[in-house]
């Protein structure tokens, strides 16, 4: 293993995105059976690793997230997706912790994914990219963490698909995780969630510009399909009360409905907007691959059908967090995790946060979430013997 580019945050790599690159030389055995590599992991870091190498926090990003936790997004310029939580003096305090966030395997922000060139052909991988799983993502992260010289992560934290990665870390590398915070997560993707993902994938594949996945080689872009996929998914991240509170049935810049298919309603217009900005920063094939990875996630199945077996070796201090209005990853899914962890007497805390903001609440400013995390991390830091 070696470094592809100098590990300076300002360094620009060949793909033009700022940040660190780590070239994984030795191929990774994927769940699908392929030995994949060499490949690149793009990652950001915040703060400094202490002498004992005991203060590293790995942040795992969600489906459409990336490594720019607390940096402006290089394409959209929007603030980092978790600036509310990560930074100097923040809940995940970069003055105290060494924060790492890597773009997942199969992603499109610098880590090798379907939009990158297949060395064998020189053409973008597209659908010849191997199908990856959440466990593959975590295997890749483990390589990065080892490369950074860290035996035990102080904490692994993430929401949604990030929470799945956290759970996978605890199951796969129990000795390497001191504390773990899966937020708005579940031990498996539900049938309903798979169904929503399938709608998104079908929208992409139905776009004539998708071209069987070869759109990059042909100089095209399935922007409409990807936007519809994003719109459908976006609804699942919200709650009915939140949508009603924000928009109700209010009309957009008009006094009456137009008896047509313009964005008559404010909610129409609201959904069209994220759909349109999303296509500028995300690769449609990455969307297919990463949603599939989530669909395949099932920790119990990985352990002979018994979820508790996944946590049998868990040594981490765990804090599971759910949100009352999240119907995509509901509290019942978190409670199932708690019971499985109780069955092996793991050290687990569980907090349900009252909010009407739905699944997206983990990305938003939720004072109760912040207070809980702050306290949990402080308690863990004390047990880990981290200086203030």
């Amino acid at each position: 293993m070696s470094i592809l580019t100098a590990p300076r945050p300002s360094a620009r790599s060949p793909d033009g995105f700022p940040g660190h690159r780590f070239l994984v030389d030795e191929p990774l055995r994927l769940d699908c059976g392929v030995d994949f590599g060499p490949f690149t992991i793009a990652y950001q870091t915040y703060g400094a690793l202490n002498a004992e190498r005991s203060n590293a926090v790995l942040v795992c990003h969600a489906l459409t997230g990336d490594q720019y936790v607390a940096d402006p997004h290089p394409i959209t310029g929007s603030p980092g997706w978790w600036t509310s939580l990560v930074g100097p003096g923040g809940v995940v305090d970069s003055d105290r912790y060494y924060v790492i966030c890597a773009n997942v395997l199969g992603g499109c922000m610098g880590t090798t994914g379907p939009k990158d060139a297949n060395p064998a052909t020189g053409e973008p991988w597209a659908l010849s990219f191997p199908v990856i799983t959440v466990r593959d993502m975590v295997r890749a992260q483990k390589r990065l963490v080892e490369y950074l010289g860290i035996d035990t992560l102080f904490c692994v934290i993430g929401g949604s698909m990030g929470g799945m990665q956290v759970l996978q870390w605890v199951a796969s590398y129990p000795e390497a995780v001191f504390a773990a915070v899966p937020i708005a997560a579940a031990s498996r993707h539900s049938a309903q969630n798979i169904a929503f993902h399938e709608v998104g994938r079908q929208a992409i594949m139905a776009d004539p510009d998708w071209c069987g996945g070869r759109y990059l080689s042909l100089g095209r872009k399935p922007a409409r399909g990807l936007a519809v996929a994003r719109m459908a998914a976006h609804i699942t991240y919200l709650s009915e009360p939140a949508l009603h509170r924000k928009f109700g049935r209010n009309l957009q810049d008009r006094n009456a409905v137009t008896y047509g298919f313009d964005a008559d309603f404010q909610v129409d217009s609201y959904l069209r907007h994220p759909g349109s900005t999303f296509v500028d920063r995300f690769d449609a094939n990455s969307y297919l691959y990463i949603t599939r990875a989530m669909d395949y996630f099932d920790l119990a199945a990985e352990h002979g059908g018994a979820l508790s077996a996944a946590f049998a070796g868990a040594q981490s201090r765990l804090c599971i967090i759910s949100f009352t209005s999240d119907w995509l990853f509901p509290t019942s899914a978190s409670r199932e995790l708690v019971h499985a962890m109780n069955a092996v007497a793991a050290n687990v805390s569980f907090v349900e946060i009252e909010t009407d903001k739905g699944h997206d609440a983990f990305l938003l400013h939720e004072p109760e979430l912040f207070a809980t995390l702050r306290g949990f991390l402080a308690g863990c830091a004390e047990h880990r013997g981290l200086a203030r």
Partner: protein
Amino acid sequence: MTAEPVSRSAALELSLADGPRTAETAAPGELRRDLRLIAEMIEPSSRVLDIGCGDGALLAYLARAKEIDARGIELSQSGVNACVGHGLSVIQGDADRDLEAYPNGAFDVVVLSRTLHATRQPKHVLETLVRIGRRAIVSFPNFGFWRVRLSLLWRGRMPISELLNQPWYDTPNIHLCTIRDFVVLCDEIGIEIERSITLDRHGRPFALDPRGSLANLLAEQGVFVLRGEAR
């Protein structure tokens, strides 16, 4: 026992089962008297589960005084958030629903303080306590306490006391019992009472046999150390 109708302040006082435990005859930062009694029964470095842990006063005390990394279960969201926010390991849940998953003998001591009477299935909860804990410490208010009896006999009204402080229509306490009731139930389901302490209305222990009539009349609450017989 007050002869006045239920006052708002009475209802706002110490919440029995679902509110955070507050200091009853204890200064701020000091542990409530019955909890202190329970804490004294717990050996250092035991594995402890506190069910209905409120704001985590006992857990925090055990961590501070006995270096015990105890776990808690609490129903109220505010209680859980306060506990986890203070670095304690607590899950949101209740005794009826969230104990089943624990394996046999998962803990050295399981504490159920002033919560039993708020559970839906107290008998099953007791059986579960002695299954998942090598010992269970259970405390509850005695419905046979003379003031409680007098309230019912004299006023013909449901009793309101310092420990039973909510009116009948607004109380989570759905399975109240006397000390004698409790002892009989333990005998019936084969739970051994290893030790028992009865407390007067100031929370001071007195030495009365829990099987005697006097304890059932004079004690405002009982603290019992239990273990399953057939192990």
